[in-house]
């Protein structure tokens, strides 16, 4: 068999998979595709990212569950961490088999090639000495954890190997207060570790709505997580991590250290120059149609120089790249339309722009306490914030609520379709639900919600 393909995809994560499947569908399974990858099939999301982290969070929520209502008490749950992690790894393997291995096996036109690819020129890559040539290419190599330079640190985990753990560390220090650090930190604290999160910035997660961030910080602290905001990891010695900030130096016992200080696009070693693909340390430059500086080469997912690293965005970009190769429609991706969530408890979810990023925009927020369902549930930590532009179109929605990740989709529809406040107010909701919060926030632009009875239209 010759090594000439219609499409060569480098990276078999969410973006690469979506592209392989979309390209197969459009071409009736006739595009000959090489899907090249390194590490387990499915890439970050299923193996080291979304799936294991959400599993851990769900298990920790069960361990933490308490009653918020008088007259109901729950027995204190016990945690067998080793068994929990065995279950987690089985769940990951199960998802990988079902949603990746078995799915791709149905596509006879897709050949899986194991190894690291590097461009030889703009028509060829080399993998383990084998030359593979193609007409179109997709660079979907994802991202890797950033490792900050902390003198003396010898043993640490990243989110790539955290999931192999079997013993629960009695103290866990997490370097970095981004989404992964906060999610894992809260879960581990609920399971029984003493968790410290060290973050140089004042807000966790960074780049979020400040009001929403402070509720998240408070909730984590209430769960027992020690947040060291304004601190950086200075050095490690004798099982301790020395952190500095705010004119102070603290020594924290660290049985285990998790580095989750951001991720960097995987552009190294690809020899993109040989393919005339423009890139920088922030990733591969693309147009909104996912085309790189070389029109036959596309890029998608975490490797792209863009703002968000999301499974949904990666998959959409991969699919759009394939559509643009074969349909020639120039379909565009707008990453600001993608909702994103932090799966702590409460959850935080956002779509569109932040209030302070948008000149001339106005915003209003209502506390979750104003939503009847939240009061009934006895779970009132949260808020709904809506940002509108000068024309009154909804351009941003930010939610902190127990189920913010589910509710944000309404905000995402509003942002994507340029809806107005009255479109949201006129949309019937179900009473009593948390989702009514977005309607209340929209109403709050024109009336005082505290003066409104229940269910006011």
């Amino acid at each position, binding site marked *: 068999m010759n090594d000439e393909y219609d499409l060569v995809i480098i990276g078999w994560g969410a973006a690469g998979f979506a592209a392989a499947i979309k390209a197969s569908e*459009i*071409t*009736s399974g006739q595009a000959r595709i090489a899907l090249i990858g390194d590490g387990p099939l499915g890439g970050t999301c299923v193996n080291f990212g979304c799936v294991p982290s959400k599993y851990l969070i769900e298990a920790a929520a069960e361990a933490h569950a308490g009653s918020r209502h008088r007259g109901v008490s729950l027995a204190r749950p016990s945690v067998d961490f080793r068994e929990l992690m065995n279950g987690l790894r089985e769940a990951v393997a199960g998802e990988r088999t079902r949603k990746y291995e078995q799915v791709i096996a149905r596509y006879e036109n897709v050949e899986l090639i194991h190894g690291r690819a590097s461009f030889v020129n703009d028509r060829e890559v080399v993998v383990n000495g084998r030359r593979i040539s193609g*007409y179109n290419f997709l660079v979907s190599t994802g991202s890797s954890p950033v490792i900050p330079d902390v003198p003396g640190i010898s043993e640490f985990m990243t989110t790539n190997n955290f999931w192999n753990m079997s013993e629960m560390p009695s103290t866990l220090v997490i370097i970095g207060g981004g989404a992964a650090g906060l999610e894992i930190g809260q879960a581990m604290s609920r399971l029984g570790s003493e968790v410290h999160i060290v973050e140089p910035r004042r807000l966790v997660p960074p780049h979020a709505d400040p009001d929403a961030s402070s509720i998240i910080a408070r909730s984590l602290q209430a769960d027992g997580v020690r947040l060291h905001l304004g601190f950086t990891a200075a050095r490690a010695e004798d099982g301790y991590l020395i952190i500095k900030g705010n004119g102070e130096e603290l020594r924290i016992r660290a049985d285990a250290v998790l580095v989750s200080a951001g991720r960097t696009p995987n552009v190294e070693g690809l020899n993109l120059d040989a393919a005339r693909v423009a890139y920088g340390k922030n990733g591969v430059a693309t147009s909104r149609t996912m085309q790189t500086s070389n029109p036959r080469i596309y890029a998608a997912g975490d490797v792209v120089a863009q703002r968000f690293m999301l499974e949904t965005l990666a998959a959409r970009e991969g699919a759009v790249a394939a559509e643009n*190769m*074969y349909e020639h429609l120039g379909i565009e991706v707008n990453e600001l339309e993608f909702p994103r969530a932090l799966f702590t408890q409460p959850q935080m979810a956002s779509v569109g722009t932040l209030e302070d990023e948008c000149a001339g925009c106005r915003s209003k927020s209502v506390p979750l306490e104003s939503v009847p369902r939240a009061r009934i549930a006895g779970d009132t930590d949260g808020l709904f914030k809506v940002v509108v532009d000068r024309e009154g179109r909804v351009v941003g929605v930010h939610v902190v609520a127990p189920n913010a990740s589910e509710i944000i989709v309404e905000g995402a529809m509003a942002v994507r379709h340029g809806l107005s406040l009255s479109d949201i107010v006129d949309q019937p909701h179900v009473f009593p639900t948390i989702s009514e919060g977005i309607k209340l926030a929209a109403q709050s632009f024109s009336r005082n919600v505290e003066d409104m009875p229940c269910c006011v239209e």
Partner: protein
Amino acid sequence: MKKVVLRVFGMTCNDCVSRVRAGLLEREGVLDASVSLKDGTAVVQIDEGVVRPDDLELLPVFKGGRYRAQVRSVE
């Protein structure tokens, strides 16, 4: 005159070959077309003053239905 080689996806029988060929010849400026089922290609002679190679990818026969085309070379 230019010779354009298209990669054509979605053809499964001789009927497809005739449909793709007819779809190409329908376009003004397409002088001749030979379509191969085995290779999944079409070699098209065009008058480049009337039709551009990229226009061929957007012909109705390559939209909506099951066939898709990509320009692979222009001589």
